[in-house]
């Protein structure tokens, strides 16, 4: 057989080598697909023909084989510096083109939908047997998740760093240092923020890594122990403390950050602490003043609600602490209405300049009596009860003022007592004279009370009753004892005197009634004037019948008011309407309201067909004791309409009338639909 290779042998070898080749190619392909990375092979220097493994197909959407590598991907690629990488500069192509390996290459593929893949990898060039570069292999791993996590971490670190740098609380991170016995004896400062530097006056580079014992040898060991506690138990601590070292008050929050490490957040509260201390001290001083009860003290708001009242004040007004706590003591209740203007003035002054000029007023005591006081108050805007009032009881002073008058009275009485030894007639005459003198004084009092129309009338007229009673009683006895013994003229004088004193009695009673409008005032409630009018009618039934009169009531409103006074108001108006009828014509009275429900006020009209009056006298008829007719003609002392006006005014309304002589009269009362007068109109105590 010779040395030539038999044909079939060559063929077999060829076949074997081809099979081997195929096997290798298959193995290669399997390896490529098994690698958990993107593997790409460029088969020429220009990277025209590229094979991509399964991972690359899936992750980047590349074709497994391409003959046109420069336009293979549906994405753009950016390098680590952010610049766009065109195909020749990408990892695989660069290695194939340059014949150089590319290491630690990062690139980002950005797809048309905006999604990104961050890739990291190496590439190695391929050479032929002549050592010429003929392609490259690149292996890339997907680091998208890692990059994203890193960015999030950076962002959050940046955020916290910002917070850390800009926060006002001083932050410091400490590592607790123990001695051999395991006792916490010191700590090392690991980190501080700028606020810490500002607070302590120490720079960061002076304190980082240093022990607190070195930095502050005088530090109270309690601070270290406290931090060690937190490090051991993990339980955060919050406390306020004073540092003698820095002469500052701190609010400190200590919490564990890791094993043997704690962080402290300290805020300088020195200013807050000191101003609070100062406030507490001044409050304590004021409280002592309030509780000392040297003088009545009240805290009130603009509505007249009293938040605080001391015992001195409550005693002055005769209320107990329990009454006060039950809400019985408020400005409305304890201030007689005639003092509202003075109080309003005082409040306006306090609002304008912080305090008011002290002035005298009266309070209504629980038992209905009155107590004269001197009051002054200061206004503290923003406080819940911004008016603090100081109230001084003037009862003693007033008594002293009256002492002179009392002494004079006593002297007169003593002198009179000496005379009383005289004959019985002389004695009675003397008493009459004395009481007459008292009546003179009382009369002046009465005139003053009348003029001022204030509540003094109540007290004054109460006291007037006594001497008047004596005048009547002794006058009556004198009259009896001397009857037949006096001449006609003297008899007439005596009769006139007695007649005048009886008129005086009526006037005093009327004056009392007028002053009771304020002294017997009841709180406002909802009052149906229809019901009130019906009550009045039933009270007046006999009078109406006697005059043969008719009273018509139609549809009256509901108001907020004092029910007793509403009764008195309607009664006085209806009584007048009946009383002043024409001699020959029976009275016809109509009581009605003609306002709509939209109006803010209500109007009540009482209309009669009586004798009427000249409107020139309109103002006079509402004044006390003003009469348009002589005593003989019509009964009464002329107080009825004055009382009406006082009632209406107390309810925040007005009263007026229209009339002409012989044409009947029309009285018109206007009241707020829901009166708030006396509720919140005045800001006072």
């Amino acid at each position: 057989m010779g040395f030539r290779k038999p044909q079939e042998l060559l063929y077999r070898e060829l076949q074997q080598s081809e099979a081997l080749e195929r096997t290798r190619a298959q193995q290669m392909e399997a390896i490529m697909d098994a690698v958990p990375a993107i593997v790409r092979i460029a088969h020429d220097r220009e990277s025209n023909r590229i094979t991509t493994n399964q991972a690359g197909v899936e992750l980047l959407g590349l074709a497994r084989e391409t003959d046109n590598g420069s336009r293979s991907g549906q994405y753009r690629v950016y390098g680590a510096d952010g610049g766009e990488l065109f195909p020749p500069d990408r990892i695989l192509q660069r290695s194939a083109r340059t014949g150089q390996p590319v290491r630690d290459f990062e690139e980002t593929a950005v797809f048309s939908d905006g999604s990104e893949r961050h890739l990291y990898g190496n590439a190695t060039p391929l050479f032929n047997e002549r050592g010429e570069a003929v392609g490259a292999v690149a292996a890339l791993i997907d680091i998208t998740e890692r990059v994203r996590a890193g960015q999030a971490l950076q962002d959050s670190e940046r955020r916290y760093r910002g917070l850390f740098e800009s926060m006002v609380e001083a932050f410091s991170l400490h590592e607790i240092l123990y001695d051999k016995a395991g006792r916490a004896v010191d700590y090392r400062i690991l980190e501080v923020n700028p606020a810490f530097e500002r607070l302590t006056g120490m720079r960061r580079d002076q304190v980082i890594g240093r022990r607190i014992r070195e930095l502050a040898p005088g530090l109270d060991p309690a601070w270290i122990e406290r931090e060690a506690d937190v490090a051991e138990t993990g339980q955060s601590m919050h406390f306020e403390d004073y540092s003698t070292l820095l002469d500052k008050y701190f609010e400190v929050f200590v919490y564990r950050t890791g094993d043997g490490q704690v962080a402290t957040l300290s805020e300088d509260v020195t200013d807050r602490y000191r101003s609070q201390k100062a406030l507490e001290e001044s409050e304590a001083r004021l409280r002592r003043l309030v509780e000392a009860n040297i003088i009545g003290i009240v805290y009130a708001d603009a509505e007249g609600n009293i938040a605080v009242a001391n015992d001195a004040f409550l005693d002055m007004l005769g209320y107990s602490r329990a009454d006060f706590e039950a809400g019985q003591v408020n400005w409305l209740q304890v201030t007689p209405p005639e003092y509202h203007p003075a109080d309003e003035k005082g409040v306006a002054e306090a609002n304008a300049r912080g305090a008011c000029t002290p002035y005298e007023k009266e309070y209504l005591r629980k038992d209905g009596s009155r107590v004269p006081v001197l009051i002054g108050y200061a206004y503290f805007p923003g406080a819940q009860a911004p008016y603090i009032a100081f109230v001084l009881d003037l009862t003693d002073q007033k008594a002293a003022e009256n002492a002179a008058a009392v002494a004079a009275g006593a002297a007169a009485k003593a002198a009179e007592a000496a005379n009383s030894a005289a004959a019985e007639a002389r004695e009675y005459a003397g008493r009459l004279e004395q009481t007459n003198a008292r009546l003179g004084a009382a009369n002046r009092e009465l005139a003053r009370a009348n003029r001022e129309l204030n509540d003094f009338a109540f007290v004054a007229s109460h006291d007037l009753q006594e001497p008047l009673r004596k005048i009547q009683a002794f006058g009556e006895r004198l009259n009896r004892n001397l009857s037949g013994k006096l001449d006609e003229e003297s008899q007439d004088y005596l009769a006139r005197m007695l007649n005048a004193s009886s008129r005086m009695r009526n006037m005093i009673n009327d004056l009392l009634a007028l002053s009771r409008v304020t002294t017997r005032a009841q709180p406002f409630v909802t009052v149906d004037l229809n019901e009130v009018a019906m009550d009045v009618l039933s009270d007046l039934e006999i009078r109406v019948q006697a005059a043969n009169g008719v009273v018509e009531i139609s549809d009256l409103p509901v108001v907020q008011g004092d029910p007793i006074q509403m009764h008195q108001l309607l009664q006085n108006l209806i009584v007048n309407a009946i009383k002043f009828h024409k001699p020959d014509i029976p009275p016809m009275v109509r009581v009605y309201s003609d306002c709509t429900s939209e109006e803010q006020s209500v109007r009540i009209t009482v209309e009669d067909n009586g004798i009427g009056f000249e409107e020139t006298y309109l103002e006079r008829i509402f004044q006390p004791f003003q009469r348009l007719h002589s005593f003989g003609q019509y009964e009464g002392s002329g107080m009825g309409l004055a009382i009406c006006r006082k009632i209406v005014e107390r309810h925040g309304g007005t009263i007026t009338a229209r009339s002409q002589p012989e044409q009947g009269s029309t009285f018109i009362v206007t009241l707020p639909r829901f009166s708030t007068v006396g509720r919140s109109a005045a800001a006072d105590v």
Partner: protein
Amino acid sequence: MEKGKPNRTVVIIAEDDPDDRLLIQDALKEACQGIDLRFVQDGAEMIDYLNHKGHYAEPGKAPYPELILLDINMPKKSGLEVLEEIKRDPALRTIPVVVLTTSRAPEHVARSYELGGNGFIAKPSSYSELVELMGNLDRYWFRTVQLP
């Protein structure tokens, strides 16, 4: 007061006004006989009288009254305070007490009855009414009702 009864009926009245004392004395004299009217100046003295203390400690100086008349406005101790003390005291509470005062205040009227007062009378303004009142008191308390 029935005529011929050996002991006179004692009525005690607290009244600080001498004019009123004179008027009441005269009116009572005019209206009826047989009443021994005693005056005290004020509430404190009334309590002394009833308890035989102070000026009234001497035996026989403060005979047991069958009717007490009280004014409300009195110095030292007001009539209402005296009334309260009398009605609280088991030895005194059966003596009828009538408040006789110038006050017409509803709260005084209510308080008087609340405290156990047996009547409330506003002082009349005329003397003749006062005489009539004294007669009425005598008729009612000593001739009409039975006292313990």
